[in-house]
């Protein structure tokens, strides 16, 4: 009897082995999985084991066939370790097209470095890049990550763009206490849940998913990638016990971290009280203090204490006059407190395309902190790391999203302001005095508010004069002048003004005999990338909504006569607007074009993409029009 059993096990093992061999050979991939794919997940088994609120591990086994050079990123193994996660026992195997094993690399053969953008190391990164002598090529990754504390748990990215999946399993095995919560995003793939004693097991499995394409400007991957999020109930980080089952409780925990970090010495309190003594409203007081912060403090990345979640005390910032986002926000909160204005820290995800914060699934989505002063009307939001933003403006880095406000009564989910195209306005007024030889003197005045202003303040304002000229020509794409003088608002005014005085030996683009062709403008008023798609699948994201006004006036001397000028143009869509009018004044020999461009919405629905493409096409037609003058 014993013998038979051994035999059975042996047979099972052999059949298993045979079935496995296929997985490593690129030849066995069905054609359907190769279409639009740079890589195929052949076999994936990801297991999350949560023992208690302090201990968890992630075990990953992954076999991926990379089909071409664009799939090269799947050949890089990169894992970060820090105080709360440690990479353990990593191994990489490489197989050729037939599935023959060519190499095995152990963790000790990989490169390990400490990393950290700021003053102190944030952790260790372990990496290895697998060489691809030829494609296709199959790699196998086996590794474990140990978690100390389950504050943030790994999720399951079911399928990335340009990637197909042959077979994949995600399994979560968790002690009923503390338990975990899960959330499905962009998928309806429900887990099979089983119970084994005091353990709950969640099992997701999927087979033969064909690859999908990524369209340009599709926003955050979390808006389209099928994903499972895991969130803790009870957790522990360092010695801080927490509960994430509600925003309130999560906020309580953050409050606990901020405890004893606020508060200023008495002389400092008096200092700030004196500073605002003539101010009446909360808004006025806050504006004075914010401006003081902007002129006297600076951002320095310094991630120390409780996984970079606990700020340096206000007294530290007071001494050093620097801090990270938390420390600076917390400092201003303390200063405001000293003058009787109540402000709250808001924990938020910074970035142009943030991941959606799901109201019914509290978790740590965040990487940044700002400050909020709630008002009955026009609540004040403050980005404390910026030295350039106007008071109470946030910009696209933190607008349009949900974030967690930390109040005395715990966390509350709040919405930051919605970007408005009126905030982001750029006006350009250009006067072009053409001379008899076709050259010109040009005076251009650019006035910017909002995102355009902020961009210039960060990338342009502090440049040397020659670099400023270069920026105007290469970044703003102005026609290259022969003589160029540029000046700006002396201070970081709002709106911000740039004045360019330019001279051109030849201002027209080209001629046909005695006819000269002039551009309606000397720079592109519209240069968004909006490619043609047969059928757009996903929403289109602009960086921010904005509007642009342009007036360009050509003054011609005697000897020029108007041959033709472009027709007036008007394109109107629910989400965008463009008009341009052209007028010729016979008496003054002046041709003026006045254009208005408005992108009113940040997000354009996939269903409206055809209209968006049509908008771009029509605007470009007008932008490419020429003014035709005849030289007598």
């Amino acid at each position, binding site marked *: 009897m014993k013998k038979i059993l051994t035999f059975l096990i042996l047979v099972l093992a052999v059949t298993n082995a045979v079935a496995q061999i296929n997985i490593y050979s690129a030849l066995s991939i069905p054609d359907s999985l190769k279409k639009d794919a740079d890589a195929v997940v052949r076999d994936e088994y990801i297991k999350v084991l949560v023992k208690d609120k302090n201990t968890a591990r992630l075990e990953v086994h992954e076999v991926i066939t990379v089909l071409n050079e664009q799939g090269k990123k799947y050949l890089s193994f990169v894992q970060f370790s820090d105080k709360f996660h440690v990479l353990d026992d990593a191994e990489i195997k490489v197989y050729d097209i037939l599935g023959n094993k060519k*190499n095995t690399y152990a963790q000790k053969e990989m490169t390990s470095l400490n990393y950290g953008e700021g003053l102190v190391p944030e952790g260790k990164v372990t990496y290895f890049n697998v060489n691809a002598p030829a494609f296709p090529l199959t790699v196998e990754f086996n590794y474990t990550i140990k978690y100390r504390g389950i504050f943030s748990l790994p999720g399951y990215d079911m399928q990335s763009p340009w990637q197909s999946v042959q077979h994949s399993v995600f399994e979560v095995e968790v002690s009923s206490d503390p338990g975990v919560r899960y959330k499905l995003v962009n998928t309806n793939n429900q887990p099979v849940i089983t119970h084994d004693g005091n353990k709950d097991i969640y099992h997701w499995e999927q087979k033969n998913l064909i690859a999908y394409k990524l369209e340009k400007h599709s926003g955050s991957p979390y808006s389209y990638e099928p994903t499972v999020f895991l969130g803790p109930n009870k957790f522990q980080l360092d010695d801080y016990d927490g509960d994430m089952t509600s925003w309130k409780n999560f906020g309580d925990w953050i409050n606990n971290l901020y405890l004893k970090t606020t508060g200023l010495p008495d002389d400092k309190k008096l200092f700030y009280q004196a500073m605002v003594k003539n101010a009446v409203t909360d808004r006025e007081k806050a504006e004075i203090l914010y401006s003081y912060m902007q002129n006297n403090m600076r951002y320095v990345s310094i991630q120390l204490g409780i996984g970079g979640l606990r700020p340096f005390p206000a007294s530290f910032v007071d001494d050093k006059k620097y801090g990270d986002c938390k420390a600076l926000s917390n400092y201003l909160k303390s200063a405001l407190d000293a003058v009787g204005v109540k402000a709250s820290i808001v924990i938020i995800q910074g970035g142009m395309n943030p991941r959606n914060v799901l109201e019914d699934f509290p978790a740590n989505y965040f990487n940044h902190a700002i400050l909020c002063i709630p008002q009955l009307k026009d609540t004040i939001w403050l980005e404390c790391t910026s030295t350039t933003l106007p008071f109470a403006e946030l910009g696209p880095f933190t607008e349009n999203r949900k974030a967690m406000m930390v109040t005395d009564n715990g966390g509350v989910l709040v919405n930051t302001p919605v970007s408005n195209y009126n905030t982001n306005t750029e006006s350009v007024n250009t006067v072009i005095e053409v001379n008899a030889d076709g050259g010109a003197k040009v005076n251009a005045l650019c006035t910017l508010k909002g995102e355009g202003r902020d961009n210039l303040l960060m990338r342009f304002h*502090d440049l040397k004069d020659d670099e400023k000229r270069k920026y105007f020509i290469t970044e703003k794409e102005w026609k290259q002048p022969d003589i160029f003088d540029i000046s700006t608002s002396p201070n970081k005014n709002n709106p911000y003004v740039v004045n360019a005085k330019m001279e051109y030996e030849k201002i027209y683009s080209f001629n046909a005999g005695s006819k000269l062709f002039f551009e309606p403008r000397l720079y592109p008023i519209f240069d968004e990338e909006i490619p043609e798609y047969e059928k757009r699948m996903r929403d289109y994201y602009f960086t921010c909504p904005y509007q642009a006004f342009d007036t360009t006036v050509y003054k011609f001397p005697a000897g020029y006569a108007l041959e033709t000028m472009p027709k007036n143009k008007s394109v109107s869509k629910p989400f965008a607007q463009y008009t341009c009018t052209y007028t010729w004044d016979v008496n003054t020999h002046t041709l003026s074009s006045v254009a208005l461009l408005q992108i009113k919405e940040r997000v354009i629905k996939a269903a409206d993409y055809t209209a968006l493409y049509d908008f771009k096409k029509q605007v470009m037609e007008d932008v490419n029009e020429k003014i035709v003058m005849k030289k007598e």
Partner: protein
Amino acid sequence: MKRTVLIFFLLSFLLTAKTQDKLPSFGKIDKADLEIKDCDFDPGAEALVLFDVGEMEIRYVENLGWLSESIYRVRIKILKASGVDRAQVTLHYYPKNRLEEITNVTGISYNLDENGKIVETKLENRSVFDKTIDNESAEVSFALPNVKVGTVFEYKYRHQRKSYSYIPTWYFQAKIPVKYSALNIVIPEYFLFSTQTTLRQKMDDEKKNETGKWYILRNIPGLKDEPYSAGTRDYIQRVEFKLTGINSPTYNEDFRTTWAKVITELQEDEDFGKAIKKNLKGTSELDAKLALIPSTEEKVRTVYKYVQSNMQWNESYGIYSFKGIKDAWDKKNGSITDINFILVKLLQDAGIDAKPLLVSTKDHGSINTFYPFLNQFNCALAYVKKGEKTYVMNAADKYNPFNLIPYDVLYTSALVVDKSEGGIIKLDSDDKAENTIFFTCSVDADGKLSGQATMNSLGYARNVRMHLHNTARLKEAFEDNSGVNIKVDSLAVNNEKDEMLPLEQKVGLSGGIQSSGDYYFLPYNLFTSLGKNPFIAEDRVTDIDFNYPKKYTVTGSWILPENFSVNELPKNTKMIMPDTSIVLSRIVQHDGNIISTRFTLDLRASGYSADSYPYIKEFFRQLYLILDERIVLKKK
């Protein structure tokens, strides 16, 4: 006991070393420095280094051995908001076996308060962080407190190295302007160092009665980023040191050397000549191929491609193979030198007389051939000379074929490491980047266009196009044309696998031509990717480096519909640089309903000196005006 001795020496060192110019002492500041608004010799700079001073002494310390001890002192004025980041400082050192350490970091920032009084804020010790990156690198980092526009801050530190032979290169120049840069070296007279300077400004004259030797430069403008620049290494003002001999009463050694001696030593070196002798396993696939190949050239090509495809470059340089070629071969991963040693070894195994070749890539700077020191080189390539033919190969480059000199060492000097045939050689070549373009487009009655194009890319142009192709960016590059909207409907690439043939790219295209009223405009410069004029700066400091000569030929035909008439053709034009190094020609002809164009741009020189910039700038200005011209059509 050790410690007391060290401190004693340190104190005496501080007492004896005096700077040549009277600098304000640490903690003392002249109010005038806080009132500076701009840098007079480099206007508009974001910050200004008021002084940057290093004082180094090499001496013997009982129980510790030979030490070099340096005190560095830097004082910086912040002029613009973007300069505030300068107050976040990172100092690198080599931590292995405690060979180096950085200690005694102190810092102060100075500001004027609203009453014009000077306010000092000290850097606290506990805000200075010492972090390890890996075994061989570590850094000390800190942020000066209370820094904003107008602030002056300074810091100083002690950097100790357990060495008598190493004096780090002193860079007078930085990204921001430096008002005063000085290095003082105090060494026992029996250590003989030679120096090599890269300067465009005059160093201060020597003054007597000073301790050691001073190197001083004043008013040094900041480094500039310029397009087509070979990199800052040939340009940054600096002084480099090399120990050439020891001449003490008890011990004598001459390190002055010749290239021949250097070669002999390299061949005996465990990490160089001997490293190449190690046998590699698992090359049966290559051996099988080679058995069938009779010609040397074909053998070289086969081995090169084999190593090129099997090895992944880890982005690191260095002229030695410290971990050995076996380790790199097993991991299929290594430095340039590891990879090219593998290439040399496998070529030698195939009976080819391959040698290692030491080079300095362009961004590492050109070498002085009269100065036989290895620190001028940054990696090794493989070299084969067979009759009249030579092959210079870098198998870490995934795109360059075996018969082209890698572009980043082209026209540089290099050292062939071989006892009998070794020595300095010049890596010259006539190879260039050549793109030949043919297109035929039909325009319909509504201004829609359709057609085909065939592009052939040869020489260095082939590498560039192959890279675009492999990363799926070729289509995008072909769609980026000025003056016309082109959509690539089909794309076929031929001769991908055979690097001896031009890369042929066939495109089927559609799109629309631009119009204004009844006028329609046709460009003739398609698919060259010439983009925008790079030479827009008013003047230039660094030499212009095009890497290699380039040639573009665009031959096109536009087939017009009945309802269009030709209003104006761009004139036939020829433009030549005075020294004939650039030739442009354009011919446009009109016959019935067909317009034929032929445009050639021949950039025959691979580079220019900075002083010829006015000519280049003017030529390129004219060139881009010519490229912007259009064939003008009118609707009947």
